């Protein structure tokens, strides 16, 4: 069966599809506004007419390429190419500003590869055991998990806690627009039917990152003389030494485990996994004050975690037939159409296909590494394109992404609205990142809270140990992070006074 799977992937045509998928995925991932999910959605119908192993291999390649490509624009433009690379901006862009764009890219690429490998390894070895664990997560557990992840906001915000919380709550508020979870009653739509779908994460991201980047450049038009920031970016190997690589291994392993863990739990996704692993890495580091100033650790944490999430998300998809996010939901569709029903019998009925998936993921990861390392010198040359030409094109691409997300021109209006909101928030020194967490987790929290209220009559909360532990952990995280934040604030105050 393993051999059969390998043979299916070793066909020249299949290898070609994988290479093509990775390349297209990287492009979709790298262009702000176009995401990995969108790449899969657009190419899924193309695979209907392919053989099962070819089609699925191409979808896997698109997925891996798409999640990995996001780091390019995050580092070079400070605009995350996909939701999964939001946290890559935090340290990636400062590194690029210091003239270490090549080093940041190299770090991102190598650790994306490593993260993917760890994810695949766990997928291959531990899938059944982890599925049993994932099944324990039901309404109670998700409700607590959403709260726990939201409590990370307190840790993410830094010294100005109320503003960080405002950002998160505002994100959760925005996410209530549209049909309510569970009962599908329209909320805050003002009778506009396009609002029924709510706002898409990618549209919010464009507003928060891409438009605000254009505007901050617009502010500096009369102040700056030089347009090309970096004329000669040095590129040697992956941009960092072997010793540096070894020093990052523990960080990478922790981040990969967080990534896989979040991937296994359906419904959370790469956008949250990169932020949580960044926060964890920062708060457990001995030099937490350096995070955000452009150090490798931040890029490593974010990029390892988001790629490890791929392997994690494949676990419930293959062994239970449960998709964890929009991208894996598309993959599920792709499998079903090729008459491969993910579930408990997948190894017995379609073992060859499962191994073909594993091998295609592996091959896609290798292609991703090769393409990205080879392409780095070209990516870096993006920095040489005058920004006054580059950014308008990026805006148009973002507009296309907003339209393409649900084939609605209406979404571009929301995009501009979010852009204005983000600009004003930055002016008011309200951080924009917690908003993403609030936006993603708010609906998860609400939906599961309401399910809990349905359950409580026949299934009280003390039957759910994981729920109780998570609630306790949430309280502890809030208390300790709040104390750390107060200490930081006091230190800043003292610095100011001196």
């Amino acid at each position, binding site marked *: 069966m393993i051999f059969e799977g390998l043979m299916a992937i070793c066909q020249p045509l299949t290898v070609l599809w994988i290479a093509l998928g990775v390349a297209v995925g990287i492009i979709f991932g790298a262009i702000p506004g176009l995401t990995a999910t969108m790449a899969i959605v657009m190419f899924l119908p193309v695979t209907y007419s392919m053989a099962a192993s070819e089609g699925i291999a191409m979808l896997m390649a698109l997925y891996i390429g798409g999640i990995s490509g996001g780091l390019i624009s995050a580092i070079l433009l400070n605009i995350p190419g996909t939701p999964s690379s939001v946290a890559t901006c935090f340290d990636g862009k400062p590194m690029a500003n210091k003239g270490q764009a090549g080093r940041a890219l190299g770090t991102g690429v190598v650790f994306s590869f490593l993260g993917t490998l760890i994810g695949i390894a766990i997928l291959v070895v531990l899938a059944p055991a982890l599925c049993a664990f994932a099944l*324990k997560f039901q309404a109670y557990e998700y409700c607590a998990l959403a709260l726990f992840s939201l409590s990370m906001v307190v840790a993410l915000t830094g010294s100005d806690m109320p503003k960080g919380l405002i950002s998160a709550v505002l994100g959760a508020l925005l996410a209530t627009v549209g049909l309510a979870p569970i009962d599908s009653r329209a909320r805050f739509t003002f009778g506009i*039917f396009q609002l029924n*779908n709510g706002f898409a994460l990618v549209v919010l991201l464009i507003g928060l990152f891409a438009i605000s980047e254009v505007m901050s450049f617009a502010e500096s038009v009369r102040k700056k003389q030089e347009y090309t920031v970096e004329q000669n970016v040095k590129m040697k190997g992956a941009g960092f030494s072997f010793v540096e690589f070894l020093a990052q291994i523990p960080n990478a392993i922790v981040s990969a485990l967080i990534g896989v863990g979040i991937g296994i739990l359906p419904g959370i996704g790469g956008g949250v996994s990169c932020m949580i692993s960044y926060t964890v890495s920062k708060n457990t580091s001995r030099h937490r004050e350096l995070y955000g100033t452009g150090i490798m650790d931040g890029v490593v944490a974010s990029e390892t975690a988001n790629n490890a999430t791929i392997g994690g998300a494949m676990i419930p998809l293959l062994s239970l*037939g*449960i998709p964890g996010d929009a991208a894996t939901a598309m993959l599920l569709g792709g499998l*079903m159409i090729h008459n491969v*029903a993910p579930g408990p019998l997948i190894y017995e009925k379609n073992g060859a296909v499962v191994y073909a998936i594993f091998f295609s993921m592996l091959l896609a990861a290798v292609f991703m590494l090769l393409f990205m390392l080879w392409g780095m010198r070209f990516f870096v040359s993006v920095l040489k394109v005058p920004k006054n030409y580059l950014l308008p094109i990026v805006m148009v691409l973002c507009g296309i992404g907003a339209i393409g997300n649900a084939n609605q021109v209406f979404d571009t209006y929301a995009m501009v609205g979010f852009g204005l909101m983000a600009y004003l928030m930055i002016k008011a020194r309200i951080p924009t990142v917690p908003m993403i967490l609030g936006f993603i987790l708010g609906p998860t929290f609400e939906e599961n809270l309401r399910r809990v209220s349905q359950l409580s009559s026949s299934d009280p909360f003390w039957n759910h140990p994981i729920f109780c532990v998570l609630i306790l952990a949430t309280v502890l995280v809030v208390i300790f992070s709040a104390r750390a934040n107060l200490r930081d604030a006091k230190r800043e105050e003292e610095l100011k006074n001196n």
Partner: protein
Amino acid sequence: MKKLLSALFLVVLLATSAFAAWPEKTINIYVTHSAGGDTDYMARQLAAGLEKVLGVSVVCTNVTGANGATCMTQYKDGDKDGYTFIATNTAALNGNEATGMVDFGYSAFEPVSVYGIQSGENIVVPAASPYKNLKELIDASIAKPGQIKLGISTGGGVYIMACVLTNIGKAQFNIIDNGDAANRLTALLGGAIDATSLPYSTAADYIEKGQLRSLCTVLSKAPTLIPNQPSASAVIPELKMDTEYALLAPKGTPAELVKAMNDAVLKVCGAPEWKEMVNKFSFQDPFYFDVEGTLKNLKEQRELFQSFEPFL
């Protein structure tokens, strides 16, 4: 007057010649559900067949959201030139109207054809559970009111099913929302609920492996390739949930064009490749109607769904 008449004549001539020439450019089909789902797959199979029959390209585009209501709202008054169609399923079309999500039904369109039927949903319980059939499950819920947890997805066909069970079957479940089929499956496997309804294709492997047990199908008649299943309608006669795939045209599309499209659809559905495809994909035989048959079929299902309205 003469001028007017000749102008009228000219218009009629032009119009008929336009019909005669149909189709001469790309036909757009807007699919109400996302890529990867059964509605999308069937629509794309139909489009591929139509391309061969009609000789022009037929492009499917997904405009998704709100169980298809977004797309249907947007295109119900779309271009009436015979190049715009909407592919959806009847549970969304009639269900969204019955549950009050939208205020229009199939009569806001010119239905072209019903061109397929789903493998249907089955009411399933874990294999270890004591209930062997639907009657036992309902009786157990009456014996222990509010203690047996039935997982549903509020607003969809599964919700209508739960309403029928409760209001006509007099069952007393603790109704829990679990979202889509994949999530209901997770909840059932994880022991968070005691029973739910799952599409046959989702549940099949678990039934075969002995982890789940199917109590009955909620189709009015079991699929042709899996015939030996009890029907829910044997216990509650009103419990009939047939999800069919339908092709609609925007309101006001000329009847000749609707008829011409229907002819093409019937040609596609009559082909042996189509039979092979639906046998494999939904365990059903080809299932299709001409325009009148489609209208009659939609009307019947709408009346059934509307009769549940007081409970929804």
